[in-house]
């Protein structure tokens, strides 16, 4: 048996991604609860733990999203700090992993490594870091360093940051110390720190990463334990797995070293008809008439409130050359006028109104599993059989009850098919995911 051949585990696992800010979380339904009260978080994380979910993810916000120069009013917004919330959830849970999305650009490596280590120890070895990068000055306006990082350097910078964090986690010799100092002199940071915390029960926090560009995939293949990917559709998932296995092996790691958990949305019911009805209802709440107009305004760079959401796309042109990052990283870079032309043609071609068109653009078409519990369970069992993914990272569209039907109905179906855990394997996230203990990083002291 060689480490270079991928071996499917035959299992899938679930994580929950409590996004906090997006148009996918429905707030207009009567069942929708607070996005900030601790009870919402307690309820959903305890439901996930009842369903043997491997991990609970929190997103990170570093600047409130804007629309036409003011805070964006229509979507859910306002969320707690990831690690603070996860430390609190650690005291009301036992087994579920606690994943904090944390940015490499607006954190200091020594400080972030220490806080993640703290979370790992406080939770008994259940912490993980979802590594993300940002580079724009708009976000930087909230921080001392401002917009200091070029877009082109973001992965180079992030990798140096992650390696420094790993060396900090690895530099504690024994449970009692002594710790060896970690030095790093880079283009953007100088770090000189003597680590203060011992290893946790899982050695060091698990690393998640979501990069999808070739650089992002290579970065993940070299550094991450789990890729939080955007490829949940079966054929695409299989192809993505193949690519990641190749990159992992090329990076000198085993074919199974990096796990894959795509982002996904589940809309389920007892029958396929009910599930389709439910989907229509969810979509109508996700993208209302105001959201549809606002979505276009973001790309057009101008007010479009005189347009009928049930009519055709605006014939006037955008006033900005490029869309901005003010609505989040997903909006980067597209050329606005070119995009407007394309979209008008596409909507006309398909006979879509503004609202229908925006729904088609924003709904997580690729990442949504819709259907009866048993049909979706059959479908997921096929992923498990070939090892297309290691699991799914579910974004519930309702807080805090959005996992109830998954845990009550889908999970038992999957357990019956033998493709989903019936118990936690251990108490650490690394054990529960079935990850290997990491090898100590080689260069503990670098000058």
């Amino acid at each position, binding site marked *: 048996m060689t480490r270079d051949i991928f071996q499917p585990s035959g299992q899938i696992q679930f994580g929950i991604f409590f996004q906090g800010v997006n148009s996918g979380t429905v707030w207009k339904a009567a069942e929708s609860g607070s996005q900030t009260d601790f009870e919402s978080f307690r309820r959903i994380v305890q439901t996930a733990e009842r369903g043997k979910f491997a991990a609970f993810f929190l997103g990170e916000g570093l600047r409130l999203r804007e629309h036409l120069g003011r805070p964006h009013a229509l979507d859910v917004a*306002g969320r707690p700090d990831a690690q603070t919330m996860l430390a*609190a959830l650690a005291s009301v849970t036992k087994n579920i992993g606690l994943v904090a999305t944390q940015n490499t650009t607006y954190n200091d490596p020594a400080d972030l490594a220490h806080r993640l280590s703290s979370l790992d120890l*406080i939770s008994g070895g259940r912490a993980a870091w979802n590594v993300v990068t940002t580079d724009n000055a708009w976000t930087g306006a909230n921080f001392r360093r401002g917009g200091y990082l070029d877009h082109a350097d973001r992965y180079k910078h992030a990798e140096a940051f992650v390696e420094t964090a790993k060396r900090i986690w690895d530099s504690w010799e024994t449970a009692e110390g002594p710790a060896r100092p970690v030095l790093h002199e880079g283009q953007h940071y100088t770090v000189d720190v003597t680590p203060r915390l011992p290893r946790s029960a899982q050695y060091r926090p698990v690393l998640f990463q979501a990069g999808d560009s070739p650089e992002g995939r290579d970065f993940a293949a070299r550094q991450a334990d789990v890729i939080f990917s955007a490829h949940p559709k079966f054929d695409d998932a299989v192809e993505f797995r193949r690519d990641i296995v190749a990159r992992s092996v090329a990076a000198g790691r085993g074919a199974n070293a990096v796990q894959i958990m795509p982002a996904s949305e589940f809309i389920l019911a007892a029958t396929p008809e009910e599930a389709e009805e439910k989907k229509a209802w969810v979509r109508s709440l996700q993208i209302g008439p105001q959201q549809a107009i606002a979505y276009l305004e973001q790309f057009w760079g101008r007010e479009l409130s005189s347009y009928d959401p049930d009519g055709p796309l605006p014939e006037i042109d955008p006033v900005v050359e490029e869309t901005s990052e003010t609505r989040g990283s997903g909006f980067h870079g597209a050329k606005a006028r070119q995009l407007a032309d394309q979209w008008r043609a596409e909507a006309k071609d398909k006979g879509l109104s503004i609202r229908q068109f925006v729904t088609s653009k924003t709904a997580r078409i690729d990442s949504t599993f819709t259907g009866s519990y048993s049909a979706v369970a059959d479908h997921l069992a096929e992923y498990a059989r070939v090892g297309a993914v290691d699991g799914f990272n579910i974004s519930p569209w309702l807080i805090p009850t959005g996992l109830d039907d998954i845990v009550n109905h889908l999970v038992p179906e999957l357990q019956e098919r033998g493709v989903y855990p019936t118990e936690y394997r251990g108490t650490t996230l690394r054990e529960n995911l079935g990850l290997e203990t990491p090898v100590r990083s080689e260069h503990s002291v670098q000058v």
Partner: protein
Amino acid sequence: MSISHTPGFLAIELDGAGYQDLAGAVLAAESAGFHVATFQDAPRAGRANALQRAAFAGPITRTIAVVPEVDTVYTEPFHISTQLASLDYVSGGRAGWIATADESPEAAAAVGRSFVSGEALAQEAAASIEVGRRLWDSWEDDAVIRDVATGRYLDVDKLHYADFETPADFAAAPYSVKGPSIIPRPLQGQLPVLAAASLVGEGLVPVEAVDAVLVSAPTPGLLTAEIRDVRARLGGSLAVVAELDVVLDARGQAAEARVASLPESGRARYAGPAAGLVELLDVLLGEADGIRLHPAAVDVDLEELSRLVLPGLRRSGSLLGPLQDGTFRDLLGLGPAQNRYATTASGTGN
């Protein structure tokens, strides 16, 4: 005994509890009747992040305030503000902030920044506290409207940019923070901010920026005089919390024998039997609004404090009862926090 003065509160520093027996320690402190648990962030081996330890304690407790030390010099004010607001949410409005200014060159080296010392420390602290407070106010209390008819989740008129800039005479590298916060206004509106009395005053952190000061003196005898001096210097409106190390006779071992192995803290220390501590705290609570106890060993001394000291103080009427469903602001006697950006005047009765 009769009540000789307004009852005060007791805080306990839980740094020694580390992370291993944290839940046990904080629950023992709460059931003993302590009003506040504080968490130091001293750069010592084996100490987990103070704010996270406080957050862990939040959901498992009901009445005790959870108050971490958080440095203002080498940390990002935007992160700190969000983290503390989040702590307020997870503790149901029982959070506070002991704002510290790290004086160690090691802290500067860890984040690759120039070492800050002298008066610049208070400037950094003042700037960081101001950023935190502006961001906490940057969402008015009713900014989340969830108005289905108009499709608006937020009332944008109730969100405000903090637009903070360091003052022109700022000694360290200048910076700005835009805002608004990424989390709605904390449950208490404004978390109570505490700082060492030595950081507060003219030319330092402005008196109005803090809600309480921590007062320290080298001996118990000097503590009373120091409390009076601080009150005279800073005015009467600030709550004053006196700092006291305690080493009690415990588990058949005399306090004096335990003292020998302790490092110097620079704080006043009481070492001896529980009865003597009750007498000292009775006197000190006549001068200060609260006392923060630093037990030599949390597990050892907390047992004695719980069994002998707090009951003694309750009998003498020196100690406030536990504050059921109260906020940390309530404990400190602070009224509702007015929002500096509020577009509609509130609380202006006729």
